[in-house]
């Protein structure tokens, strides 16, 4: 099966002087998908986005937009539009003029532009603001106009550069749903850049986790979280316990690892070719306590407790190993574990992952 790809990033590298921003990046973004570039600041995600938009050129490698090479094509000739982080709405133009800007440059005739601008304003529920200037709008309204402006010419790909970061928390949640709906309705490929993993997990069809100028893993939100491809991804997405150890046997997709826990754990692995040093990862919410403990069982001493409302986070000690675990507070006035007390903890071996170094 091969889905048609909207964008192909072919072995792209980008250097700024001695600094390597992108290091042999190679992947495809499919048509009509909501694709997210996720990573900490400085990971190269913004550089990659700017490269697709046409504001940077690759030092090596190339880019294809619907099969056509665009690496050297100037920004104004690419059928790609951007929603900027701070929206970059032209302050000297009304909202209508902002939305019409791209259409005029494409040479559309007047009636068609008027009709289109009206439709776009309607789409973002801003019809009554057509004659206003950007500085008369709230953050959320600006965001909508930036979207309308970028979508007006029906680009082949829409790029969004951390568009939610300037909004307050409540609005951000609402805009997530709105963006997702808009993407489904228009069927346009969205490439979304963010450092916020929750945003990425919530909205995306697929996520590329980036770190140190490389793509660390590409997959669905669930794959990224449940089957992190390496230590970087496991560490960046969500919270986890890492235990360094020695793989003593590899059999197909399964590996057995010996760690300071004392019990050998057999579970699926990523990127191992044979025995040797490796890391085991087990997420805090996958460790059960007392009656919820199952699978590999250990006696542990409670060391600290942090009450977070919906959850309570604990650190416990098993021999030399410190583990973090979290319990959902399913009942009100649920008994909490006393610091210093001994408890029984456990996790099912398939919930752990063995990661190569």
């Amino acid at each position: 099966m091969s889905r048609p790809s909207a964008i192909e990033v072919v072995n792209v590298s980008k250097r700024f002087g001695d600094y390597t921003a992108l290091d042999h990046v190679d992947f495809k973004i499919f048509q009509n998908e909501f694709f997210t570039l996720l990573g900490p600041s400085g990971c190269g995600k913004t550089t990659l986005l700017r490269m697709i938009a046409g504001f940077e050129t690759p030092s090596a490698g190339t880019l294809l937009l619907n099969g056509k090479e665009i690496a050297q094509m100037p920004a104004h000739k690419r059928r790609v539009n951007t929603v900027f982080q701070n929206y970059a709405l032209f302050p000297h133009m009304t909202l209508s003029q902002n939305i019409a800007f791209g259409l005029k440059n494409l040479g559309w005739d007047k009636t068609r532009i008027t009709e289109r601008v009206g439709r776009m304003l309607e789409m973002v529920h801003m019809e009554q603001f057509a004659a206003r200037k950007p500085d008369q709008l709230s953050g959320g309204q600006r965001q909508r106009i930036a979207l309308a402006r970028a979508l007006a010419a029906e680009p082949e790909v829409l790029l969004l550069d951390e568009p939610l970061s300037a909004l307050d928390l409540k609005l951000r949640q609402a805009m997530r749903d709105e963006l997702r709906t808009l993407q489904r309705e228009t069927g346009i490929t969205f490439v979304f850049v963010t450092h916020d993993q929750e945003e990425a997990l919530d909205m995306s069809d697929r996520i590329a986790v980036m770190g140190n100028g490389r793509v660390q893993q590409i997959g669905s939100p669930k794959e990224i979280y449940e089957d992190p491809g390496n230590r970087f991804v496991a560490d960046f997405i969500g919270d986890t316990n890492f235990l360094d150890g020695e793989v003593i046997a590899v059999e197909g997709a399964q590996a057995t690892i010996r760690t300071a826990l004392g019990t050998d754990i057999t579970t699926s692995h990523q990127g191992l070719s044979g025995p040797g040093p490796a890391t085991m990862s087990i997420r805090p919410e996958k460790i059960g306590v007392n009656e919820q403990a199952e699978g590999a069982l250990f006696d542990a001493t409670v060391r600290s407790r942090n009450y977070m409302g919906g959850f309570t986070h604990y650190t416990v000690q098993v021999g030399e190993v410190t583990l973090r675990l979290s319990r959902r507070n399913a009942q009100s006035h649920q008994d909490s574990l006393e610091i210093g007390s001994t408890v029984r903890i456990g996790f099912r071996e398939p919930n752990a992952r063995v990661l190569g170094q």
Partner: protein
Amino acid sequence: MSQNIRTYPGLRPLSILFFLWLYLPIGVVVFYSFNDNRLVSVWTGFSTKWYAAALENEALMGALEISLTVALISTLCATLIALLAAIVLTRATDMKFRRVSETVVNLPLLLPEIVLAVAVLILFSQIGLTNGLLKLVLAHTAFCTPFAFLPIRARLQGMSLDFEEAARDLYAAPFTAFRLVTLPMILPGVFAGAMTAFVMSMDDFITSNLLNSGGATTLPVYIFSLIRQGTTPELNAISTLLIAASLLLATLVLILNARAMRRS
């Protein structure tokens, strides 16, 4: 009673005295321009006759015409040159010779004007340039350029690059992006720069005086020759008109700057 620890005794009266001192000379000139008496400092009554005399003074009007012609042409040239240079120097940051180019554009501000005036005087005499107006325009364009350059550059630097990228992203070719987005957004800076250049050209004495030949006597040079003949109420009237014009332009520039600042 606790006192504001940030204030110091005497600050307020000193500042008030300072502002009085700052406006005293201007006030004196304006006041005596309405004096009926021929002697400048002997007040005998209110009159506007010296304004009438000034406006009928053909030599004065001739000098004004020269000054306006020189200032308008120099301002236009200086602003265009400064605009081009400012765009390149703010937008092509990785360029070679950027620092030295910026220094060169600002050179007239750094060096004493009398030296520059002597330099062009000798140059013009060496190449045999005798057209008085052309000499003035060339020299004025040079020293007006940094005055036009600085506000334009400030505006370009204050403008986020996002806007130009957004324009390119929305299918605007480079020149279209400049015409529809960059230029309208830096226009207050361009106006402020042009007006500063205009005022500097109109006010200039040192260069214009040294180049004064070929029938190109500017207004300040003409006023200087009047002062040499002694202070007169007519001189006060002329000065008052000049003060009024300067203050009007200054206010316009300050309003433009303030509006530009509020926007960014």
